């Protein structure tokens, strides 16, 4: 049993898939000899060669487009965005070309686009983004956001094996901050489309994903201690397609819901979740579904400002108390 970090688990997942399936390859900026800006692919080029670990020019649309072309031909590309913020440069390619290829033309496009996302790292407006909301609206894409070491590995492996294009958004705050025992040789394949109950509870549900899961768990612990509240935490893991069943099961159980995400509120993923709950479990609600999100501003980098703009554990605690008292 080895203790792995989130980053090591991601590496291991890609490594195993590349060993298992020679169709799998990686392309991106500085991923070869250098091993990537965060060393996620460190050692990959030495092991798998330059033809399977390809250093590209700075051209995200070309990286994603070339991945799509190779995927059509039966390969299984993993396209790395050096920071996920730069996926916006491939927005057209992803939403218009990649997402529609199967529907338009029956073209299989099994590919993964991944990269470091998220804030709480003083990265400022262009090295802290969470692009889930930008792609949630695109039929044809799948979106996964691992929160745990186990899922970092299990979701990348499932994403690589999936026959549809998958956006895998890893959280850079978690890279080296969380550790977990991962049994050697166990084949970990986290199912895409299935949420996880991160903590059982009966009074109130916090629905979230990625790094925010840990803030939710902290809040739940605190609420248990200080208020005797039993808080359930749902880690969605996959945002598209969304696991309505798991969401509604928890809503029917606790009747009170907080939806929390790190990204800004307006037009964010929490809106969609709220609409689904309202639609499918309205009668089960004892209180309005409330959103705890970042403020609607670009993310500033000064510590004082970033900490203010982003939702914190304490905000979840306060919001949960409000909701429990409703």
């Amino acid at each position: 049993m080895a203790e792995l970090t989130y980053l090591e688990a991601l590496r291991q997942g890609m490594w195993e898939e590349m060993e298992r399936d020679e169709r799998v390859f990686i392309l991106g900026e500085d991923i070869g000899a250098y091993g990537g800006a965060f060393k996620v692919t460190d050692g990959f080029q030495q092991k798998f060669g330059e033809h399977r670990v390809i250093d590209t020019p700075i051209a995200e649309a070309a990286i994603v487009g070339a991945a799509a072309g190779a995927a059509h031909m039966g390969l299984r590309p993993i396209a790395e965005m050096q920071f996920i913020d730069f996926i916006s440069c491939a927005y057209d390619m992803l939403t218009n070309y990649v997402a529609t290829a199967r529907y338009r033309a029956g073209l299989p496009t099994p590919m993964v686009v991944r990269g470091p996302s998220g804030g709480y790292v003083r990265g400022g407006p262009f090295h802290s983004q969470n692009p889930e909301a930008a792609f949630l609206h695109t039929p044809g894409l799948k979106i996964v956001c691992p929160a745990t070491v186990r899922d970092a590995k299990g979701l990348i492996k499932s994403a690589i094996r999936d026959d549809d294009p998958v956006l895998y958004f890893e959280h850079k705050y978690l890279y080296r901050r969380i550790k977990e025992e991962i049994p050697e040789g166990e084949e970990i394949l986290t199912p895409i489309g299935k949420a996880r109950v991160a903590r059982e509870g009966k009074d109130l549900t916090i629905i979230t994903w990625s790094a925010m899961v840990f803030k939710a768990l902290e809040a739940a612990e605190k609420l248990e201690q200080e208020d005797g509240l039993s808080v359930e935490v749902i880690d969605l893991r996959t945002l598209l397609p969304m696991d309505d069943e798991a969401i509604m099961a928890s809503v029917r159980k606790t009747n009170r819901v907080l939806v929390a995400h790190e990204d800004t509120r307006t037009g964010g993923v929490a809106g969609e979740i709220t609409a689904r709950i309202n639609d499918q479990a309205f009668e089960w609600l004892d209180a309005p579904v409330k959103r705890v999100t970042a403020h609607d501003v670009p993310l500033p980098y000064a510590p004082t400002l970033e900490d203010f703009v982003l939702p914190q554990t304490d905000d979840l605690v306060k919001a949960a108390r409000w909701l429990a008292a409703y």
Partner: protein
Amino acid sequence: MASSTAPAAAKTALPAGLSREQLLEMYYFLRLTRALEERLVNLYRQTKVIGGLFRSLGQEGESVGSAYALDRSKGDFLSPLIRNLGSMLVQGATPLEILRQYMAKAESPTRGRELNIHFGDLERGFIGQISHLGDMIPVMAGVALSFKMRKQPRVALAYVGDGAMSTGAFHEGINFAAVQRLPLVIVCENNGWAYSTPTHKQTAVKQLSDKAAAYGIPGYRADGNDIVACYAVTRNAVERARSGGGASLIEFVTYRRKGHAEHDNQSYQPKEQIAEWEMNDPVDRFHGSLLSTGWSSGAELDAVDTRVQNELDAAVELCENEPLPAVNTALEGVYASPAVMQPEWYRAL
């Protein structure tokens, strides 16, 4: 072709290593392209075409010639644009498929999902474009990348317009192909116009082939209305790519004799310019040289024309009365899984 109708003896040596049969086949595709578009115009006028109709009138030569330079037996691949009907026919698309696409029939290759010639077939070796110009260059670079990674002796060919060369996607894709030395041939069809925009408002370069210099790859240039010249220059670039020479760019100098689409009265195009290029029609030119050189006989060419008309009669007749797609098919195939999307709740009421 029945050898009885063959000319006594060719007066001129056969060009570009092409056989008489190949020349005749190129003529067939040329005529088929021209005639199929003419049928489509009639159907369009009868409002049987759904969406716009895009003509390649005057550009059929470079489409057919360049596509013919690919080696289908080796699995070469292309990505056409809206005016590359000829290229698709060469690559194996059938008139019936084209008609079905333009009429949004249930049996059309995209099952009524995408318009006109926006369709492909991995087996026959072509991928349909999307509307967003330039995007197919990175995608075809990826196709070429798969050839290189698998050490397959295959070549990919992608078309780009004089206008589409201004897009960021074109730049990122061609640079990627160049630096990775991918077997990709990029064919720029300089037809003088991008919708209503003349090439000099699109770029300050005089020759679009000069853009190759920015990527460290060879840039070639040919008379786009000389089908044999187009074949020859493309063939050279294709074999260069196949033998590991990497990417290259070819400019075909041609002209868009019709408007951007049938609805466009092309008022902005000088009448004389159009007339001048009409005198330089690629079909007439090829027809003329086939005869004057003695590469083909008049009887052979007439036989091709008849064959084309018969094939189109059959295709149009078959297609016209076919049904449109059944509504429930609209929810199929967004994903491999789930294979079918659920209908919206309000449809169950």
